[in-house]
């Protein structure tokens, strides 16, 4: 049954590119990197400002830390509050509820990072992504989190800022060298997975549009791909709800499953990160999995460094998969309007969507990398470890970890399980077949075909 039109419906301009959160994430992330570079070039550092809980063994020790760093936490929180609330306001969100929600998220993130800084946390599998996710889910589904806090739970906004900041840890030559391999690996996996999910969906008599949404969600970038393809092919709202439930459900399972499997199979940090980048669908969920896997390095039995897991994940997922979403949408809109549309409807194909749908935060990621490459140019390897890393890179890494934590917490806190649509069996089967094939294919590509490359990834 069609919904009744609403008189006087708001008609905002479709040209609202400057309002998109991608650009605000780029602006905030790149501004932070520029501030770090200016401070570094002036012989100073953002280290005082970028505070985070340090390793502790007893509560008195933790309380002493809080007492010592209270002003620093307040300063960091105040600056982030102003920046994020300003961006939210410009995007069209109401400032006061967003600010209130962010204060809550910030305070809870201090708590989460304090727990994971506990000396015994790792032995108990108390990793930041897992704690943040579980805490958020409890808040949203067990307690009655006020609905007016929801505007502050911007998973994508926070994760995009984190991705831009992540660019600062990867010198541009590494991105240029790794990019083609990441693109080849991701393209193979995306194309194979897309057609498997779509063919299985059609075999099970699912609608073409639902099949295309599920296929894009499982092969490209999760829910972002679902809505991009939904818009391109004119999908039914109820089908989007079905796809949302399946993609979110599987993405959450994979956050826990992928790091454990990668560790059980003795994958190195670089190989495991690449596998997660190939097999997890959504950016935020994938970062949660990659960061969890990265925390297994060192005493956790995984060779390599935590950063290697994040770098190879980012290269495969963000550079290899996300940036092609506009092309997928353009191709599918061509198919939809020439072959799927009923005669009374007349769709247009706009190739400009290849650019408008492009995830702009990837540009911020590249700019951040370029800035740090320039700032660190001329420093010897010894200087890099003693001066450049602690004074330039580590403060940005700390900011990045805050942004990741805000995002992981928001994933759980924004998920009201009761509100999700029930899943249809055939849609679940079609998507699940693709997930399993993608897991195997991603493993083969990451550990065998390109294994030597991902093993050696380092700045």
């Amino acid at each position, binding site marked *: 049954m069609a919904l009744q039109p609403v008189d006087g419906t708001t008609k905002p301009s479709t040209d609202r590119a400057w309002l998109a959160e991608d650009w605000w994430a780029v602006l905030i992330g790149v501004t932070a990197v520029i501030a770090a570079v200016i401070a570094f070039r002036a012989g100073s550092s953002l280290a005082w400002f970028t505070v985070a809980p340090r390793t502790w063994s007893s509560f008195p020790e933790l309380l002493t830390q809080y007492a010592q760093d209270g002003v620093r936490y307040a300063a960091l929180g105040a600056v982030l509050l102003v920046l994020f609330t300003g961006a939210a306001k410009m995007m069209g969100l109401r400032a006061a509820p967003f600010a209130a929600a962010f204060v809550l998220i910030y305070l809870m993130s201090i708590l989460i990072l304090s727990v994971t800084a506990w000396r015994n946390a790792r032995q108990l599998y108390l990793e930041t992504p897992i704690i943040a996710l579980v805490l958020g889910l409890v808040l949203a589904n067990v307690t009655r989190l006020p609905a007016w806090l929801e505007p502050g739970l911007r998973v994508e906004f926070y994760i995009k800022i984190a991705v831009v900041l992540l660019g600062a840890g990867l010198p541009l030559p590494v991105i240029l060298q790794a990019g083609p391999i990441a693109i080849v690996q991701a393209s193979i996996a995306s194309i194979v997975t897309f057609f498997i999910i779509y063919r299985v969906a059609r075999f099970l008599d699912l609608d073409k549009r639902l099949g295309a949404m599920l296929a894009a969600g499982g092969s490209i970038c999760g829910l972002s791909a679902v809505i991009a393809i939904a818009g391109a092919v004119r999908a039914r709202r109820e089908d989007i709800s079905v796809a949302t439930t399946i993609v979110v459900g599987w993405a959450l399972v994979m956050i826990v499953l992928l790091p454990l499997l990668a560790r059980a199979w003795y994958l190195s940090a670089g190989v495991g990160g690449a596998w997660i980048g190939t097999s997890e669908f959504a950016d935020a969920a994938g970062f949660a999995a990659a960061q969890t896997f990265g925390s297994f390095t060192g005493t956790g039995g995984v060779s390599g460094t935590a950063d290697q897991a994040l770098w190879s994940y980012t290269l495969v997922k963000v550079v290899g998969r996300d940036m092609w979403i506009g092309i997928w949408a353009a191709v599918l809109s061509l198919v939809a309007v020439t072959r799927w549309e009923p005669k009374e409807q*007349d769709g247009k194909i706009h190739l400009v969507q290849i650019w408008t749908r492009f995830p702009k935060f990837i540009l911020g990621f590249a700019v951040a990398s370029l800035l740090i490459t320039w700032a660190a140019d001329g420093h010897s390897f010894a200087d890099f470890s003693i001066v450049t890393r602690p004074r330039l890179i580590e403060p940005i890494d700390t900011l990045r970890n805050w942004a990741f934590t805000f995002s992981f917490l928001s994933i759980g806190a924004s998920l009201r399980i009761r509100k999700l649509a029930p899943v249809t069996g055939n849609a679940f089967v079609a998507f699940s077949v693709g997930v399993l094939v993608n897991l195997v294919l991603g493993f083969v590509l990451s550990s065998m075909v390109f294994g030597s490359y991902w093993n050696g990834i380092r700045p």
Partner: protein
Amino acid sequence: MTSRLARLLARFSRPDGASCAACRHFTSDPHRIEAMLPGLTTLTSAFASVASGDGICLKHDTYQSGRFRCNDFAVDPAPGSTSDPPRP
């Protein structure tokens, strides 16, 4: 063959005033889209670039580009006006 090619090329032309973006049944307000698609904000956002001005047709209950057209097009009597619920 020529007419089929012409029809295909016509698909790439700019949408005119009768496209869904100008229809009273269509909303591309990201606040409203997020409210109408529960679970969406868990892993994406209607404010993201990938959304690209897409919206919901309240007549057919579809999510789509504003560049589509259909026979149910209705002129928006007061573009820019609103009786929407307050923004979140």
